[in-house]
């Protein structure tokens, strides 16, 4: 073959092949999962990734006939790293749709990136600001409103323990903790609850003896923890070591469910009450299938982290279907007001605030003798879906594109 022939063949390939590649690239829908693999929520990120991947694989990694390119970045549970890596994925990979991260404080920073870069952003966490004072057109909140959570926990606990009026709070000192604390105190007023103490601790705290010492000194009827993950596990363990539980009930107001409960022995879980965004015995067809698939794949039932990622991804995919478009603004318009019967049952996105209106769950942990198997942690005793009353709503105008 002559050199000229090779050049001709190359030119022909370039003419025919490159547009095909370009066409393929244009068709691809790039979705970013911003999940922490390092930092305080390093243990949660891989679980988020599992859930999101499962939801995409159910659709054979395709949406509206186009291939989905799923990219992930480690946000390191830090605002600086998360925003930098999100921008890098948006600019470098062409991601136009983003889910995550896990920390409320970090997500607020990422939400600003979504707004600036005009990227659709779904998030699940305890801060009320994403669908409140810092709401905008591009970010959506999947987790229950902190008000819904507080109302479910306080009302149902008081129904079962009407005399437990002296409450001591242990609160994670960041956006999520402050939001839930505010509404627990607010809802508590209706029940005549006296808050005998409220200590705040930094994210990633592992030494709770001093906090528990102060709690014990207050002689509360109940201790409430508004923290998450490793903090909640360390706190619950210390409260048991001090001999407070099981005599004094302990409430984990916003728990991941399985991921935290599995780290506590049944003795520590005795008289433990748990508020959560998901529990694996939730009785819906989608949840049953998801739990069965997840257990078959990973041996344990899913907790809040994989379930949130799974459900957020499904919600986003449902919006693509509704919009019949992969343009960001079309999908946003489709998400606003969308109603689905999905993982948690009936779910709706409030178009005015971008808050998902959905149920919140309240569990009571089982004593060891009542557990049918090792992972039979708790009984789902109540579900609540009271939306945030208008007078508390801080999102006055969701704004334009």
């Amino acid at each position, binding site marked *: 073959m002559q050199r000229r022939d090779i050049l001709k063949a190359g030119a022909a390939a370039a003419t025919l092949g490159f547009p095909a590649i370009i066409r393929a690239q244009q068709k691809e829908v790039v979705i970013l999962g911003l999940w922490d693999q390092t930092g305080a929520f390093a243990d949660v990120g891989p679980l988020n990734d599992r859930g999101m991947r499962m939801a995409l694989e159910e659709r054979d990694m395709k949406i509206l006939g186009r291939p989905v390119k799923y990219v992930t970045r480690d946000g390191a549970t830090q605002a600086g790293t998360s925003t930098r890596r999100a921008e890098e994925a948006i600019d470098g990979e062409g991601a136009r749709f983003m889910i995550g991260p896990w920390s409320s404080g970090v997500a607020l920073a990422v939400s600003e990136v979504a707004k600036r870069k005009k990227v659709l952003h779904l998030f699940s966490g305890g801060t009320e600001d994403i669908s409140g004072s810092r709401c905008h057109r591009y970010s959506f909140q999947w987790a229950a409103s902190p008000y819904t959570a507080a109302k479910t926990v306080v009302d149902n606990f008081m129904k079962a323990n009407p005399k437990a009026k002296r409450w001591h709070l242990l609160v994670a*000192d960041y956006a999520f903790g402050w939001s839930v604390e505010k509404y627990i105190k607010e809802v508590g007023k209706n029940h005549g609850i006296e808050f005998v103490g409220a200590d705040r*601790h930094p994210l990633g705290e592992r*030494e709770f003896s001093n906090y528990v010492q102060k709690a014990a*000194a207050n002689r509360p009827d109940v201790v409430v923890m508004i923290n998450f993950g490793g903090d909640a596990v360390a706190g619950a363990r210390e409260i048991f070591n001090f001999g407070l539980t099981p005599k004094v009930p302990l409430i984990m107001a916003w728990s991941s469910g399985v991921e935290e409960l*599995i780290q506590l022995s049944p003795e520590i879980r005795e008289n433990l009450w748990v508020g959560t965004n998901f529990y694996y015995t939730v009785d819906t067809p989608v949840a049953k299938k998801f739990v069965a698939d997840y257990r078959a794949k990973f041996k344990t039932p899913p907790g809040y982290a994989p379930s949130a990622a799974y459900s957020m991804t499904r919600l986003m995919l449902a919006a693509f279907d509704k919009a019949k478009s992969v343009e960001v603004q079309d999908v946003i318009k489709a998400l606003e007001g969308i109603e689905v019967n999905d993982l948690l049952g009936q779910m709706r996105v409030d178009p005015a605030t971008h808050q998902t209106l959905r149920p919140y769950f309240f569990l009571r942990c089982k004593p060891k003798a009542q557990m049918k198997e090792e992972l039979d942690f708790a009984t789902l005793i109540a579900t609540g879906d009271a939306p945030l009353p208008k007078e508390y709503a801080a999102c006055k105008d969701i704004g334009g594109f």
Partner: protein
Amino acid sequence: MLYALMGLGLSLITGVLNIPNFAHGALFAIGAYLLVSAANLVGNFWVGLLLAPLGVALLGLMIEYAGIRRLYAAGHDYQLLFTFGLALILNELIIVIWGPVGISQLPPAILRGGVDLGFTFYPKYRLFVMVMAGMLVLLTWLFLEKTKYGAIMRAGIENKEMVSLLGIDIHKLFTFAFALGAFLAGIAGALTAPIRGLSPGMGVDMLGIAFVVVALGGLGNLLGAIAAGLLIGVAQAVVAAYWTEASTAVIFAVMALVLLIRPQGMFGIR
């Protein structure tokens, strides 16, 4: 007292072998995990508490014999890198053997719950740990001060060449010092398990504090390590009582303050 125990072990290794042992935190974590495994296997917490540090000491012995010893000729930097790499390997090994999910270990039944001390309410198990760690620090101190082998170890810290010239096998001394340091890290980890629970990264936090203790007391200074461990523990407890949020920051604030005044540490470098 746990800080003193960790600091003492790390200081011993730093003093005798002249290397900062970055794997000390991982040895601490392995002590905790071995306690859980041994306690579950034999169904007795106390047997687990006895076996776990012995297992870590044995591991320490092997690390010195099969790893660090081979690198004496290669130089200081290589030993340092070796312990750093070893820490990562041990950490991953914990995940492979025991899994990535945290584990809770209950204190023995007799030490569960708290006692009212009049001025405060305190868990029985923490009181036990205080006494036990105090006794271990005292016993280690007596061993180093009052026994012939302890004197050789102290001499090894002061002047290795002289000890070698006196006909003492310096390599055996190094191996024993590393194993003893590992034993102290292992028992600190085992004692901590019911308080803090277990997670693969549990050694990282403790390693940072152990280095603070060693730097504060004076590199390789055994008495300094004990005093610094106590100082850090007391400072943390006092600050936590009045300003709980600052209880971790105070550890590093105390170190910064002391090193600004005495860069060689409270008791000087040995």
